[in-house]
């Protein structure tokens, strides 16, 4: 009880200092394209991440990936690898890096970069300068993926 209160207190103090989002152009990539630092400083919400993952207008991840945790959703794609157990195979930093820009990890991948906002060819005008997901949505999806175990 006491520990929880202490932790909560620490978070409240820490939050304002790190709440600023990392802009897409300022993301720091490590070896193999990993992104160690949270994009927002706010802990990802796995439940919100699950919604973003499944939403066809947001992550639309099922277009390409099979995921047994969402077996209630019809038609899972198989262009990319299955995501069953993905939380066992990758670290949080790996997954964040892949979501932000998978091409840093797999140079020829078809996977879209979900937190990149420039360098696209002929991008739709209303989407110019936009990322596919927000920084917090990326953090939420990372948190969700980390819950997927074999």
């Amino acid at each position: 009880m006491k520990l929880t209160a202490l932790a909560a207190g620490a978070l409240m103090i820490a939050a304002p200092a790190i709440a600023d989002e990392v802009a897409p152009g300022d993301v720091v990539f490590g070896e193999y394209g990993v992104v160690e630092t949270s994009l927002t400083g706010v802990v990802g919400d796995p439940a919100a991440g699950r919604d973003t993952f499944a939403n066809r207008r947001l992550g639309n991840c099922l277009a390409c990936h099979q995921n047994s945790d969402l077996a209630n959703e019809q038609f899972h794609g198989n262009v990319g690898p299955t995501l069953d157990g993905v939380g066992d195979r990758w670290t949080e930093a790996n997954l964040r890096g892949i979501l932000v820009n998978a091409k840093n990890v797999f140079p020829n991948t078809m996977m879209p970069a979900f937190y990149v906002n420039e360098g696209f060819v002929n991008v739709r005008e209303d989407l110019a300068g936009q990322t596919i997901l927000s920084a917090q949505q990326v953090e939420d999806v990372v948190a969700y993926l980390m819950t997927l175990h074999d």
Partner: protein
Amino acid sequence: MPGYTRKATLAVLLAGTVMVAPALGDESAELVIDGETLITRAPAPEHMENMSEIMSGWLFRSSETQAVQMDDFDNPGMLYVDEGLDLWNVVEGEAGESCASCHGDAESMAGVRTQMPHVNENGELWAMEDYINNCRTERMGAEAWGWESNEMLSMTTMISYQSRGMPMDVQIDGEAAPYWEQGREMYYTRTGQLNFSCANCHEDNYGNMLRADHLSQGQINGFPVYRLKWAGVGSIHRRLRGCITDTRAETYGRGSDELTALELYVASRGNGLSVEAPSVRN
């Protein structure tokens, strides 16, 4: 070339275990219409460096959709052929002529589809729609038809139908070469916020599932196509625009130089496959 058989097997395996169950068609089926067998598989044309076999989109559709195309009485695209035959004989415009006045029977159009798009006498690449509208405005003194109008779709479907069963054979060298290069460049350029090229789906991943969509090679030998999703026949440029829009890119207008060049390149990837017009797809 992607391991097509392996991927297809994987798709079937997945279908058994997870919620991946759109009806996959029989990829070994033969497309027979009125006793004639159409060419749905052929060796890839020499210019295609990454593939060895080309396959009609018919092979990727469900058995039910395949069956509709095999029966001209069931195929709703045949209504457009009938309408096109009627229009062929309609006198319109200041010159008081119909298509038939100059061209005779519609059967004289056999082979035309196989060579479209084609460079005209002024060195410009024209799609079939351009040739039709040129006849209307320059020879008949009539109004041009809209690219996606029912009249244009009926006429292109009927003219294409005259070549049904004949192998696609568009020219890619000589005067066509620069247009073909432009189209090829477009095919392999990743565009839009999703950053996909045509090749990402239709060369690297045909046979795989994109959600409920069984990815085909994106061949256009079947056009004009009766698409169940459209509940009607649509043009090649309409379909190309749909794919480009799906990448979250700005797209090009029907009849634009860009889409006509892309049409030529995509058509050339189907050289050797039968014209299927009017084909049926989902």
